[in-house]
């Protein structure tokens, strides 16, 4: 059996379930309560669970993220919402210097079972200060896990294992996905350790995550029409990367394109490429290539934003380039 719902609803169901099954869980963030959540993800939860468990915070990203770390240390299971990844820069010190280091630095004495959710990505003409994709920075940090749900299934089911994890887990929700609709099987479960092949193929691997998954699937569809069978791998977990699944796909297809909405330099795409070179260099029939966001602050105008971002057309071109 399955149901039809959207990504936003799936996230909300996951939060509702967490609040219901575990009294230690609470939500905290800017406008998660009365306003109903900037992206309406938490809408209705304040009425259902009350202001102790759905906490509106002041505009104090560093402060309330740090408070979430403290609350986790104190035995609770906070789910902190940072409105977007852009504002998470203000909280970064706490995430890096406290949350990520704490377990190791204390010689294993303390753990920080904290979940931080944030919206990421561009595509809605909200300009240079609201369109970043900094999940790559987080993906480089020892001590944390980083998730990027790109499907209804992952939106619905990644939260529970994230909360069960004894260490900090960051969840990146791409803003263009909130309205994504789909079927959700009643009996599905997901892990938070593996990448997943979303479309099998044999000629080229398209390795991607988050907001670029749909574009990659579109590209694969177009390529299929032109006789190229592309396999689409959804990383899902940006840290730790599931090398096995990536390498199996690349070794099979012998050609690969990495698609990543982050700026090109020092990106997750670069990391995936480096690992491919390290691990399956001799299986490659062509240089790995990547499709990333152009290295500009995101322009507001629609056509310029479109030009800056990865698009299905660019992915198609990059895959074809592998056969040149």
């Amino acid at each position: 059996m399955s149901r039809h719902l959207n990504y936003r609803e799936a996230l909300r169901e996951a939060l509702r379930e967490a609040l219901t099954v575990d009294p230690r869980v609470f939500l905290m963030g800017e406008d998660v309560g009365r306003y109903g959540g900037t992206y309406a993800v938490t809408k209705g939860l304040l009425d259902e669970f009350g202001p102790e468990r759905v906490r509106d915070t002041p505009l104090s990203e560093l402060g309330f993220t740090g408070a979430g770390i403290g609350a986790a240390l104190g035995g609770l299971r906070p789910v902190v919402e940072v409105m977007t990844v852009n504002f998470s820069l203000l909280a970064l010190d706490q995430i890096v210097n406290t949350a990520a280091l704490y377990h190791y630095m204390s010689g294993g004495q303390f753990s920080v079972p904290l979940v931080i959710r944030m919206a990421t990505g561009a595509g809605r003409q909200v300009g240079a200060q609201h369109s970043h994709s900094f999940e790559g920075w987080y993906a480089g940090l020892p001590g944390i896990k980083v998730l990027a749900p790109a499907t209804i299934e992952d939106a619905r089911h990644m939260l529970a294992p994230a909360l069960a994890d004894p260490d900090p887990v960051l969840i990146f929700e791409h803003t263009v996905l909130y309205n994504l609709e789909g079927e959700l099987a009643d009996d599905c479960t997901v892990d938070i350790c593996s990448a997943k092949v979303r479309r099998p193929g044999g000629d080229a691997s398209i390795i991607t995550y988050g907001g670029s998954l749909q574009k990659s699937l579109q590209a694969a569809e177009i390529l299929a029409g032109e006789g190229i069978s592309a396999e689409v791998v959804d990383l899902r977990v940006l840290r730790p990367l599931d090398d096995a699944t990536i390498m199996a796909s690349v070794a099979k297809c012998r050609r690969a394109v990495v698609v990543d909405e982050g700026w090109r330099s020092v990106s997750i795409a670069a990391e995936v490429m480096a690992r491919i070179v390290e691990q399956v260099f001799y299986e490659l029939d062509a240089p790995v290539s990547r499709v990333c966001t152009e290295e500009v602050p995101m322009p507001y105008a629609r056509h310029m934003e479109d030009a800056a971002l990865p698009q299905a057309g660019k992915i198609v071109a990059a895959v074809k380039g592998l056969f040149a």
Partner: protein
Amino acid sequence: MSIDHPAPPPPSGPVPYDKPLALALLADMLRIRRLEEKAAELYGAGKIRGFLHLYIGEEAVGVGVLHALQPEDNIVATYREHAHALVRGMDMGVLMAEMFGKREGCARGRGGSMHLFDRTTRLFGGNAIVGGGLPLAVGLALAAKMSSEGSLPQGNLLSGAVGGAVKQRITACFFGDGAVAEGAFHEAMNLAALWQLPVLFCCENNLYAMGTALERYESQTDLCVKAASYNMPARSVDGMDVVAVHRAAEDAAAEVRSGAGPLFLELRTYRFRAHSMFDAELYREKAEIDEWKSCGPIHTYSGRLKAEGKLTEEEFLALDAAAGAEVARAVDFAEAGTWEPVADLLKDVHTAVGAAP
């Protein structure tokens, strides 16, 4: 029905200005109002996109303060800054074109509604990070202070010397009540007060940060007490009264300009519209909005002017019509604007070599 945030009594009393200034204030409030009503409509029509934050209801604040400043002063504003750009002197067509994303916009269509910049009027954005403009204002004031004190040649500063004589340039920094909770506020206030910099902090306190009311996010809701904790003088002003704002800002600007150090103005106001175009307004009562609308800055002020005989209904209608016509021209200008060529995508990531910074 009880109202969480009662409105002040409607402003009253004489308007101590001669007619040109009295009408200029009104005209600018009308220009903002009509521009933004149109912008909301154009958002619905898909001409403007992204985030759009309207100033409707708060016009007295921007108009009152900006009319108290000098052309050489610096302005730092937030994402809710159409008023500031306009009153400061940005052409409405250029502003509208920016919101359309057209090349004829002040930032070539790259900024949009939240990122209006204007070098000629010294408008340093348009900052969409809450609190982000505060440290910037401190630095601009530091530059102004260091140069006016003669340790630096004035000519080296952006846009050249301030007139002939050395005259203190001040920096007006606008920010919302929500920004007061940010660490950036605290650090900026301390620096400005410590170094006695010419900053006029203008807190546009509309009692809400998005959907969170002031008392639900501040343990101390008297924002002037915050300023005291930095040893900074502070005044609270009825931000629904353009006269009160203008007079307070004139006094404050003069003090800051005289070298007395920074000053904090709390301008108590109210936003009549939703926070942005995505806001269902679940967090406040319609009755509260209505009560504040009853002391709306435009009709109370025009009422006072009329009562004093400084304004006739015909004059009011003429000003309003002029504002409407200006908006219509601005829309035409924006519509006729062009799209930046995609080939220019990478242009201006870095300053072109040889350009004077």
